[in-house]
C-alpha cells in the first residue's frame, strides 16, 4: 500500500520534445544543482553524425564538421573556435556531457548553423521551419462542426471528458494559432484552448454536449462534432457544462434534437502506417477498404440510411479507437471492411467472443461487449449474405476472432472482399467495388427493421 501511494504521488518525469525535419523525439530532462540539464550527445544524435570524447576534464564534441570543447565544472566552452558562455557549469557524468537546458536557444543555432526556436516554459524545441499551424472554425450547420485545418498531417491522441474533447499532440510540432484561447460563435462548441506543457501540446475543445472527432484530407483536417445521441430527443441529456460556457442558457436538453443519428458506422480497416495485406506489389488493403467504405457510405445514404465513415483518409486508428467511436455514435449496425487476395466473393464475419471475458453487473467487459448483440449481428450477416448470393456473388458467413467486433455494443459484422477471379487487381475496379457495396447496402437496408428494433 505504501509503495502504491509512493507510486501514485511520484512526480511526472520532466521531458523536452524536439521537432525537426530529420526526426521528432522526446528526451528526459535531468535536475542538477537546482538547474535543468540535458545530455548533449543524445540531443544531437537523431539530427546527424555526432561523436564525443572525454579527455580529463575536457569533453570534445563533434557534429558533422563542427567541433566544440566543453570543460567539466566550467561555464566557458569553445564552439567553432569561438568562446561561448553557458548559463551554468558544464557537467561530465561517466563520460556523458550535460548542458543547462536554458542555453539550448543560443547553443544549438551555433552548432547546427541554422535557426532554432525554444519555448523553455513548455520545453518544446523547433529546429528550422517545422512548426505545424492550424486554423479552427465552427460551421453554421446543424449540428455545428469545428473544422481544424493543419498545415501537415496530424495524429493526436483523442480523449473525451465531461464537457470537453482533448486532442494531445505528443509527436507533432503543432503551435498555437496566435492566441491560446479560441472562442467560437456557437452555443454547443463555444471555445477551445491550446495548452503546452512538459514537451507536449494539447487542444481542449469545450462543449455542452459530448463530442467526437474524425479525420479527413489525409490527416490534415480534424472535424469535431457532437456525438449522435441514441436517446430519444425529448429526454434531457445530463452533461456537465464547462466553466467557459457559464453564460450560455442550458442547450444540452435541446441540442440532441438537432443532432444527426447514424444508422450505420462504416469502418474501412487499417490505414496510415498500418497497410494491411499487400494485395499486389502496388495495391495495399488499406486503400481498397477506404474506396469500398466511401462507396458503401454513399450507397447506404442513397437508401435513406444515415452513415458515418470512421476513416475518410489515410489515417491510423487503433482498434480501441474504432470501437469507442462506434459505441459513442450508437448506430444500429457497425460494418467493418477488409479485403483479401485469397478466395473469391465476400466473406461475412461475426465476432468470436473470447473466453474469460465476463461482464460484471452493470459493467460490460470490453472484450465481451458484443455478447448481447451476437444474434442480431448474425441476422444482419445472414441478410447481407443472402443479398450477395442473389446477385451471383459468392458469400460465406463465418465467425472469426477479429477485433474490434467483440468490443462493439450493437450489431457488428465484418466483410472480407476477395476478387471474383484470379485477377486480384479487380479489387481496385470501380465496377466490381460498386457491385459489391450495392448488394451489401441492399442487404443492410433489408434488415433495417430488425436492426432498428435491436438498438
Amino acid at each position, binding site marked *: 500500500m505504501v509503495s502504491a501511494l509512493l507510486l501514485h504521488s511520484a512526480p511526472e518525469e520532466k521531458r523536452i520534445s524536439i521537432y525537426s525535419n530529420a526526426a521528432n523525439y522526446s528526451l528526459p530532462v535531468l535536475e542538477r544543482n537546482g538547474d535543468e540539464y540535458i545530455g548533449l550527445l543524445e540531443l544531437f544524435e537523431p539530427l546527424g553524425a555526432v561523436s564525443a570524447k572525454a579527455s580529463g576534464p575536457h569533453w570534445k564534441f563533434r557534429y558533422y564538421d563542427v567541433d566544440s570543447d566543453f570543460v567539466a565544472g566550467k561555464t566557458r566552452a569553445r564552439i567553432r573556435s569561438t568562446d561561448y558562455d553557458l548559463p551554468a557549469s558544464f557537467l561530465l557524468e561517466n563520460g556523458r556531457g550535460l548542458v543547462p537546458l536554458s542555453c539550448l536557444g543560443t547553443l544549438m543555432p551555433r552548432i547546427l548553423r541554422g535557426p532554432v526556436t525554444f519555448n523553455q516554459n513548455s520545453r518544446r524545441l523547433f529546429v528550422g521551419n517545422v512548426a505545424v499551424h492550424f486554423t479552427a472554425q465552427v460551421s453554421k450547420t446543424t449540428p455545428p462542426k469545428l473544422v481544424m485545418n493543419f498545415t501537415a498531417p496530424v495524429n493526436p491522441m483523442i480523449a473525451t471528458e465531461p464537457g470537453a474533447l482533448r486532442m494531445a499532440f505528443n509527436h507533432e510540432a503543432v503551435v498555437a494559432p496566435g492566441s491560446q484561447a479560441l472562442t467560437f460563435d456557437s452555443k454547443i462548441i463555444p471555445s477551445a484552448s491550446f495548452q503546452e506543457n512538459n514537451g507536449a501540446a494539447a487542444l481542449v475543445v469545450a462543449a455542452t454536449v459530448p463530442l467526437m472527432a474524425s479525420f479527413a484530407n489525409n490527416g490534415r483536417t480534424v472535424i469535431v462534432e457532437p456525438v449522435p445521441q441514441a436517446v430519444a430527443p425529448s429526454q434531457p441529456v445530463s452533461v456537465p457544462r464547462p466553466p467557459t460556457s457559464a453564460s450560455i442558457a442550458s442547450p444540452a436538453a435541446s441540442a440532441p434534437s438537432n443532432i444527426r443519428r447514424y444508422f450505420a458506422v462504416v469502418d474501412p480497416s487499417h490505414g496510415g502506417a498500418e497497410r494491411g495485406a499487400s494485395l499486389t506489389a502496388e495495391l495495399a488493403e488499406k486503400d481498397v477498404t477506404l474506396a469500398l467504405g466511401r462507396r458503401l457510405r454513399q450507397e447506404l445514404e442513397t437508401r435513406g440510411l444515415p452513415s458515418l465513415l470512421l476513416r475518410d483518409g489515410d489515417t491510423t486508428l487503433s482498434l480501441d479507437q474504432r470501437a469507442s467511436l462506434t459505441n459513442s455514435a450508437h448506430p444500429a449496425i457497425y460494418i467493418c471492411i*477488409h479485403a483479401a487476395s485469397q478466395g473469391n466473393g465476400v466473406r461475412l464475419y461475426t465476432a468470436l467472443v473470447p473466453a474469460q471475458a465476463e461482464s460484471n453487473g452493470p459493467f460490460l467487459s470490453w472484450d465481451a461487449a458484443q455478447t448481447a448483440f451476437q444474434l442480431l449481428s448474425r441476422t444482419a450477416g445472414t441478410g447481407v449474405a443472402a443479398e450477395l448470393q442473389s446477385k451471383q456473388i459468392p458469400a460465406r458467413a*463465418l465467425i472469426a*476472432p477479429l477485433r474490434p467486433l467483440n468490443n462493439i455494443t450493437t450489431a457488428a459484422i465484418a466483410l472480407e472482399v476477395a476478387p471474383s477471379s484470379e485477377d486480384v487487381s479487380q479489387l481496385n475496379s470501380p465496377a466490381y467495388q460498386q457491385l459489391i457495396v450495392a448488394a451489401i447496402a441492399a442487404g443492410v437496408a433489408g434488415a433495417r427493421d430488425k436492426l432498428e428494433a435491436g438498438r
Partner: protein
Amino acid sequence: MIPRHLIIAVGILLAITLGMSLYVLRMPGRVERSESSAENTQPVAPPVSGSTEQVTLYVAYDDAGVLRPKPVRIQLPAGRQERAAEILRALLTLYLDKFSPHPLGAGSEIRDVYLVDPGLAVIDLNAVFADSHRSGVLIEELTVVSLVQTLSANIPGITRVKILVEGRERDTLAGHADLSNFYDVPAVTQVVAQLQNAP
C-alpha cells in the same frame, strides 16, 4: 621414328589428363548445387522412441478455405506437454511441405507448448511464424483454429488456449486474427464446424 603404339599411348594419356582436369574444375560447382538442393529449412523433430500413435490433425486447405481432420500416425513421447508440442510440430511439418495445402513461411516453428492447469494451454510461436504469415482474415483464422483444434482434440482437458509469439503477447497474427485474448475451446469447435463446410 617414334613407334606407333607409343604415340597412341601418349594420346590416350593426354585425353585422360584433359578429361580429369575438366572434371576437377567442375567438381566444386556440383558440390554447391547438391548441397543447396539438399537444404531443408523445416525444423528437425527431436528423436522420439516408442511405437507410433494415431492423432488427428486439423489441416487448413487454402484453395477451398476449409479445415479438415486428417488422421496420421506419429511417434509421441510420454510426457503430456511434450506430446502436445510434438503433435503441433507434426501439423507444422505438413504446412512447411513443398505441397502444403496452407503454406507457412520457411523457418516457422512452434517454440514450445505449456500446459497450465486447469485446462489452459499456451502455444509459443517463433517470430518468423508470425512475421512471415500471409495477411488476411480467413487465412489467419485457418492457422489459429487449426492449431487450437489440433491441440484440444488430441490432448484431453484443454479448455482455453493462449497464443504467444517469442514468449510475448501480440495483438494479431498478421494484422487480423486476434492474439490478445484467450481462445475458448468450445467456441473454437463451433468455428471448426463452420470451416469444415466448403463455400
